[in-house]
């Protein structure tokens, strides 16, 4: 019986080492939830700014509000929102992941996180340039859904180097983005769903599965 426990222990030790040495497993589910909340907040601000109702199919970026909020013109307003959402989402994600890494005794910056980052960034850069080319050719309505497609592909690619759930999140983002490519005009709504709701959903799923223990 003792021998049996020893073997069991050896097997679980092996499994854990294989995981810890090849995947960045400290990615926190709360990072996804917080990033999603900031995304929803940002989208809410934009709808409020342009005074439009979601899913009414207006090209909000062509609207000119009568009394600009905070004295910002639409382009600047969107830029401020985009930069703040991105920064807040990234910082909060880093915060929760750092916390989890500390608890797990894994380093935030090691070979696994570097590998995860590189494999995430490659599709993102390709996607960024692709979206610039769309904008350059005045195909603005395709930019938002295209970002979702490439973000999804980045997640699918990165999933090999972190928790498996990221793969399903990626597939969902790609499908959502492709829907938007065929039926453009709901860019912001799709962003709110893709970067907001999907992040919150998968983040909570991962939190309940991995983080609470």
């Amino acid at each position: 019986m003792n021998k049996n426990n020893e073997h069991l222990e050896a097997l679980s030790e092996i499994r854990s080492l294989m995981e810890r040495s090849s995947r960045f497993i400290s990615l926190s589910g709360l990072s996804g939830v917080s990033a999603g909340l900031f995304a929803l907040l940002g989208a809410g601000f934009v709808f409020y700014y342009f005074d439009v109702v979601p899913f009414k199919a207006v090209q909000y970026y062509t609207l000119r509000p009568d009394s600009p909020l905070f004295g910002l013109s639409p382009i600047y307003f969107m830029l401020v929102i985009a930069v703040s959402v991105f920064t807040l989402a990234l910082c909060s994600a880093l915060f929760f992941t750092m916390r989890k890494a500390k608890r797990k005794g894994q380093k935030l910056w090691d070979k696994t996180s570097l590998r995860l980052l590189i494999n995430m960034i490659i599709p993102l850069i390709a996607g960024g340039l692709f979206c610039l080319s769309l904008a350059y050719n005045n195909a603005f309505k395709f930019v938002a859904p295209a970002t979702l497609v490439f973000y999804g592909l980045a997640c699918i690619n990165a999933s090999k180097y972190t928790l498996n759930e990221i793969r399903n999140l990626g597939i969902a983002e790609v499908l959502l983005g492709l829907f938007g490519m065929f039926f453009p005009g709901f860019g912001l709504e799709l962003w709110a769903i893709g970067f907001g709701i999907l992040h919150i959903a998968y983040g909570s799923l991962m939190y309940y599965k991995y983080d609470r223990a």
Partner: protein
Amino acid sequence: MKKIIANLNKAFDNKVRLGIMSMLMVNEWVDFKTFKEMLDLTDGRLASHAKALEENEYIEVRKQFIGKRPNTSYRATAKGKKAFNDHLDALEALLRIKD
């Protein structure tokens, strides 16, 4: 039963060596420092166990310089991967019998 126990590989009858092989199954080259940190070992212990695996031709060593610092990395050989997989199969078979 006896036959299964015979399949357990003596070379892996040790936590450190199991650890080294586990990491090399899922990573191509792993360097000395990464092993030390992940397995929480001293230089001497790690070196002696790595040497034992190397003598069995289960792992190969690569020594190179990164800048002016020497850097030692290890990789599992095909023979080593097969031996480790056989060992895992034997472990699982043992557990299944006793269940």
